[in-house]
């Protein structure tokens, strides 16, 4: 920023305001933390993460998965602060371990869908022509079937192989977790692919790309070295929001009985227990429901904050 100062001799001197040059990352981080909602989001999300990590120190996973039929449908009390489910499992410890799984599903499904979406968007936008037409028809085809309907169908189609457990990172979890992550990851990438594609279409005509090509850079170098870094803003925003979408979708699938199967807990399949009698089993949905909502709200706030922080129109 330049400030003009009138000197005594009538000469206008331009003084460059002394300021540290700032990297894009620093600007974005600074603006992000100025965004009130985003900070609230970070705080809420930190609370949820603390709950599922610190909580695990108080209860073992074996305890969370232990059934005790004599204590089934116990309302919240001294022994079970959040009550018990249809086979007498403790809801409090299940929301802790279920939360770990739900968050992990959200993050891994996001990683898959963001990778697929970015890659397809880059390829379609950069190469154009037949490749682009085919990929975009595929995107449209996936979008014509509502996400939940498609996921229910995929989940049902793949569930036959899913009544077993597998060991991931030293923990025994239901295979259904993997199935759910993969199907959410492989269906939720469409809108990002469109966004990235449209960005690539305008970026690839710009001088720096033309210059790179003139200097003999290959396609992959141009795509990953020059174009991708310029698409990072929408990708990061989409990635954030995608975690929330994946968590909600997983819980909806599990709630309907087409998601993660017990004994592995997720917030969604704890809620599923409430379906048996929506009249009086409120403790089966209040805690996991509140946790899902808190997480998703936090993620939406953070996503919004990121969007504003990246928006060049609001550079201050």
């Amino acid at each position, binding site marked *: 920023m330049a400030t003009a100062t009138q000197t005594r001799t009538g000469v206008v001197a331009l003084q460059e305001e002394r300021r540290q040059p700032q990297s894009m990352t620093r600007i974005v981080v600074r603006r992000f933390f100025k965004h009130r909602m985003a900070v609230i989001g970070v705080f809420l999300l930190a609370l949820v993460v603390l709950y599922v990590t610190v909580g695990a120190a108080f209860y073992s996973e074996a305890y969370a998965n232990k059934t005790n039929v004599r204590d089934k449908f116990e309302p919240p009390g001294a022994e079970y602060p959040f009550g018990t489910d249809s086979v007498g499992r403790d809801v409090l410890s299940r929301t802790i371990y279920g939360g770990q799984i739900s968050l992990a599903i959200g993050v891994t499904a996001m990683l898959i869908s963001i990778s697929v979406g970015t890659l397809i968007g880059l390829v379609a936008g950069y190469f154009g022509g037949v490749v682009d037409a085919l990929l975009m028809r*595929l995107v449209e085809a996936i979008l014509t079937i*509502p996400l939940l309907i*498609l996921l229910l169908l995929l989940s049902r*189609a793949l569930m036959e192989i899913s009544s077993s457990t597998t060991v991931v990172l030293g923990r025994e979890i239901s295979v259904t977790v993997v199935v759910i992550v993969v199907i959410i990851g492989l269906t939720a990438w469409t809108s990002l692919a469109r966004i990235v594609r449209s960005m690539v279409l305008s970026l690839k005509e710009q001088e720096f790309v033309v210059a790179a090509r003139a200097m003999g850079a290959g396609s992959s170098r141009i795509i990953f070295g020059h174009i991708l870094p310029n698409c990072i803003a929408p990708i990061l925003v989409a990635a954030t929001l995608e975690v929330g979408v994946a968590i909600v979708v997983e819980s909806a699938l599990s709630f309907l009985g087409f998601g993660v199967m017990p004994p592995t807990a997720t917030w969604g399949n704890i809620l599923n227990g409430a*379906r048996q009698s929506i009249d009086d089993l409120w403790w089966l949905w209040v805690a996991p429901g509140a946790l899902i*909502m808190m997480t998703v709200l936090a993620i939406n706030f953070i996503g919004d904050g990121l969007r504003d922080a990246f928006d060049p129109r609001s550079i201050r």
Partner: protein
Amino acid sequence: MGKYIIQRALQAIPLVLIVTVLVFSLMKISGDPLAYLAQDPRVTERDRLVLRAKYGLDDPLVLQFVHWVFGDEGYVRSLDTDQNGEPDTTVVGERRGIIRGDFGDSIRFRKPVTDVIGQFLPNTLLLGTTALTVTIIMALVIGIFAALRQYTLADNIITTGAFITYSMPSFLLALVLVQIFSIQFRRWGLPSLPVSGMYDPRGDNSVDELIRHMILPVLTLSLINIAGWSRYIRSTMLEVISSDYIRTARSKGISERRVIFLHGLKNASLPLVTLIGLNLPFILSGAVITETIFSWPGMGYMYINALEQFDAQLVVAFVLMLAVAVVVFQLLTDVVYAWLDPRIRYD
């Protein structure tokens, strides 16, 4: 205009084709549609083979696809039912293909899939159109209200409320509504609302009962959409009322009410056409979650049951019809939009 419509319609054809292939592949991954026969002791091995031949389950995949789409009337398959190496039975195909509306029979309902869908569709349409009407009216009222009071306390409260409702999964919203309006109301001795089905199970099929049963599912379906749509209307309204022709209208001395509702709303509601058009097919899909929670006998409820009971023909027919509806409504939306907004060029 005519050229534009034809062009858009032609673009839709490959899309429908891809979706059909996609749905067919999913049906094939889902496993053997005749697996249920294995549990029936009255079905002999011969019956099983004949049935497999009737549906062409042992044909090459491409042929199966062609037959599924276009029908296999008169197509003869030879069968070797006594395993002696020589064909002894012939089975003549009689399917007419999905292109002529033959989606096969539902295993559970034991009647054509199209009849089953016809039975559930009206209930979904009733619920969906009511919810859509409520959504549009409420979203318009709230959106315009918030736009006219931008950044006031009321606007901020609406914004926060919308954000919270928007972040709420629909099943959670449904459970909260049930807790408040059904369980707590009953406990407090207030008139409570029913939470299951369309009518009173004791046989009271009056319209009053129907309306009472509709309130909670309609509320669930509308609230979340109202949150999103009212934000959308607020932003388009804000854009419109800061434009030149609104200032012109005001400077001519037209009453504020007339400016907002006649000049402003007319233009602000254009994007609403897209919103409604793209959402109409999702009404057909029924709200799977809402209908399941409230046991509302609509398409979503039917779909979940069909999936649970592995009623493959019903599942496939439903998904495919839905996809075609989405494509058709996208087309209609584009055409209506182009017709309403003269700024859009067709070429």
